[in-house]
């Protein structure tokens, strides 16, 4: 049991760390229509953010900065899936500002990796009606790290300082760093380093921290603001050749936001250059290692009081909204798509068999595999979760629609035609009302299955009740699990109640029994 829990927790982490997935491209028609990125922005300023520590911290900093400079309410949409999703959200106005890195913008959004300077990137984004601030002050890129003690011993400050001791250095580099042209090969070239290849090993990134801590190696590659740098007392070696690509942190905003809220944008711009690498590293460490809430970290940085930490009720409220959104959309989908498919299945025999078969086959794809397959298409976040939920909710609705309609006594159809109802009218006035109990049972099954399956959505960062369940399972913390599991069960209860009521409203009185 414990091992299973631990394995699950590792899995969650693996999934959450899928960072800048391009995704969100080959969207199937139906689903794009249904999924407008996220809920619309409305009258508040919406701060977005990606799903890793640094993005949470920066998002909280942005939110509190705007709150301090404005009376417009601020909505936080932190922990969104991928660069692609945030970009779409920005374009559609679902969010107003978020933090990103110049390198990522150039590569993932502009698809021009050779754009380096802030001005070039800002100009290119202009064409998309977006803009960026100047650098916030730090560069989150590759860096080389050694232990403080080791650095002291050998007087290491820059990468170049490694040359005198190069033949004796034991290095462990990540597979990615070793393989990328702009990683190890270029580095050695650029700095004319000559490590003893016997002493350079490839290692899983997370293991290399362990290795350097245990003095098994002397030098590793890191992201320059990784919290572990602080935790393990490592020193970053200065890249004085500016060899590594630049990943300056910036605010990304839509031009319309800048135009409509100049004051707030100015407040954000005032942060330019204010967040040093050390400061960022510090804040990441506070979050990752000391587990201080993001809002506290941001408040401390900004020198203001933390707004009250999100209370239990608030968290449950937010999770409820997220979960409702997931279940609601898939419910809508199953009604708007499943019922017509069920009707079509009755009307056209061969097509009908095909429809019933496909909805059956979709159901056999296990949820984890389906989510894995949907990630390349939809990225991480709400979309793949919604897509999976929609697909899963089809079978009960299609099958019950089909069955319900087939069970309608044909004499009623004959009479309806005799009285001059056309096909549509026969369908809506006679067939569907008479089939409504069975139909409603199918929708109810789909909804309740969705409430359960939607907890899996947390695996792709879509939030909802799954988030506490998943982290609770990871931490082996029953209390946290229940924070998600009990509201999910309650939602099923409420859904049950709503369907009882719907039964009263939708099932024609003439079919109901007085018992």
């Amino acid at each position: 049991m414990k091992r299973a829990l631990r394995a699950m927790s590792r899995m969650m982490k693996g999934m959450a760390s899928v960072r800048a997935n391009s995704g969100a491209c080959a969207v199937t028609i139906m689903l794009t229509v249904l999924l407008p990125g996220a809920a619309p922005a409305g009258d508040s300023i919406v701060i977005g953010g990606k799903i890793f520590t640094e993005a949470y911290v920066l998002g909280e900093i942005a939110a509190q900065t705007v709150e301090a400079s404005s009376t417009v309410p601020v909505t936080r949409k932190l922990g969104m899936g991928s660069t692609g999703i945030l970009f779409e959200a920005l374009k559609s106005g679902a969010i107003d500002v978020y933090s990103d890195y110049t390198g990522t913008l150039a590569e993932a959004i502009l698809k021009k990796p050779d754009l380096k300077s802030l001005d070039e990137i800002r100009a290119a984004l202009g064409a998309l009606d977006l803009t960026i601030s100047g650098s916030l002050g730090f560069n989150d890129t590759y860096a080389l790290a050694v232990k403080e003690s080791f650095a002291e011993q050998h007087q290491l400050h820059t990468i170049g300082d490694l040359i005198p001791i190069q033949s004796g250095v034991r290095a462990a580099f990540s597979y990615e760093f070793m393989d990328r042209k702009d990683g190890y090969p270029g580095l050695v070239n650029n700095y004319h380093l000559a490590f003893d290849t016997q002493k350079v090993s490839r290692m899983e990134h997370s293991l290399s921290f362990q290795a350097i801590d245990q003095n098994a190696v002397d030098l590793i590659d890191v992201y320059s603001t990784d919290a572990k740098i602080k935790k393990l007392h490592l020193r970053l070696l200065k890249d004085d050749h500016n060899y590594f690509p630049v990943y300056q942190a910036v605010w990304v905003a839509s031009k319309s936001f800048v135009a409509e809220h100049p004051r707030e944008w100015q407040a954000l711009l005032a942060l330019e250059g204010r967040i040093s690498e050390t400061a960022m590293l510090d804040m990441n460490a506070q979050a990752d290692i000391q587990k201080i809430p993001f809002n506290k970290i941001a408040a401390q940085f900004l020198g203001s009081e933390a707004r009250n930490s999100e209370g239990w009720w608030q968290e449950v409220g937010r999770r409820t909204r997220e979960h409702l959104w997931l279940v609601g959309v898939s419910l809508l989908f199953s009604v708007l798509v499943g019922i017509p498919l069920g009707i079509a299945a009755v009307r056209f025999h061969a097509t009908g068999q095909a429809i019933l078969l496909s909805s059956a086959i979709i159901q056999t794809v296990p949820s984890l595999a389906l989510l894995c397959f949907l990630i390349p298409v939809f990225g991480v976040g709400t979309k793949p979760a919604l897509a999976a939920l929609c697909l899963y909710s089809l079978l009960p609705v299609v099958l019950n629609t089909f069955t319900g309609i087939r069970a309608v006594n044909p004499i009623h159809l004959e009479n309806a035609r005799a009285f001059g109802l056309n096909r549509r009218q026969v369908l809506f006035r006679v067939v569907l009302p008479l089939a409504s109990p069975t139909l409603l049972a199918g929708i109810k099954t789909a909804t309740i299955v969705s409430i359960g399956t939607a907890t899996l959505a947390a695996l792709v960062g879509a939030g909802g009740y799954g988030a506490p369940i998943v982290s609770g399972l990871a931490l082996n913390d029953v209390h946290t699990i229940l924070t998600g599991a009990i509201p999910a069960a309650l939602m099923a209860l409420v859904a049950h109640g709503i369907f009882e009521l719907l039964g009263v409203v939708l099932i024609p009185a003439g079919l109901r029994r007085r018992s």
Partner: protein
Amino acid sequence: MLELQNIYKTFEDRAVLVDVNLMVPKGATHALIGSSGSGKTTLLRITLGLIPFDKGYVKINGHALLSFTPVEWADRIGYVPQDGGLFPHITARNNVALIAKLRGWGKSKIDERVEELRKIVDLDAEILGRFPREMSGGQKQRVAIMRAAMMDPAVMLLDEPMAALDPLIRSSLQQELKSIFQRLNKTVLLVTHDLGEAVFLAEQITMLHEGRMVQTGAYGDLLLRPASPFVTQFINAQRTLPDAGDVR
């Protein structure tokens, strides 16, 4: 004018109608009598275009069934199915008013028309608010008649419309219907097992037996010039009330 020409119909290789010909002139009422299972209901359903048939033509005023859309055809014909055929999920009133609503009639016009028909069939107003399962057999049958008459169609097909009514309501309804048919010049095809009803309402009577037409004519023809002994047997079988004199 309603015309049925050379109708043939089989159900799973059993001939149910064989060469049926029928002509109901505009404004006339025609009764269809015959033994149980002889194909009367089937003939009405064919006339309405509800079931396919093997051979023959169905025409209204010279235009064939096939030259209309089903809805156009149905709009020309009012129909009382043998069992009433009310929709179980809506109230009696909604059963009656359904088509009028779909055709966009205003509420007051509908209410007026429903009230008018309700009086004709002598139904309590309160009963219109009930669902079919809450009504007696005769009540359902009267609602079915109201529904058929609602849109004031030129042609009416009635399948044993008064079988479940008591003699009192039945005879007054027969009176009403007869005067309506005449006043509004309806073309009517009526199936009934009540010879008295057939004679009272219809000028012409067709007798069906095992899917074939045995005889068509006025009551007098059937009575005085029967096409076969079966006709006479059939007419005489009607059990009449003993006279007051025969009773202790």
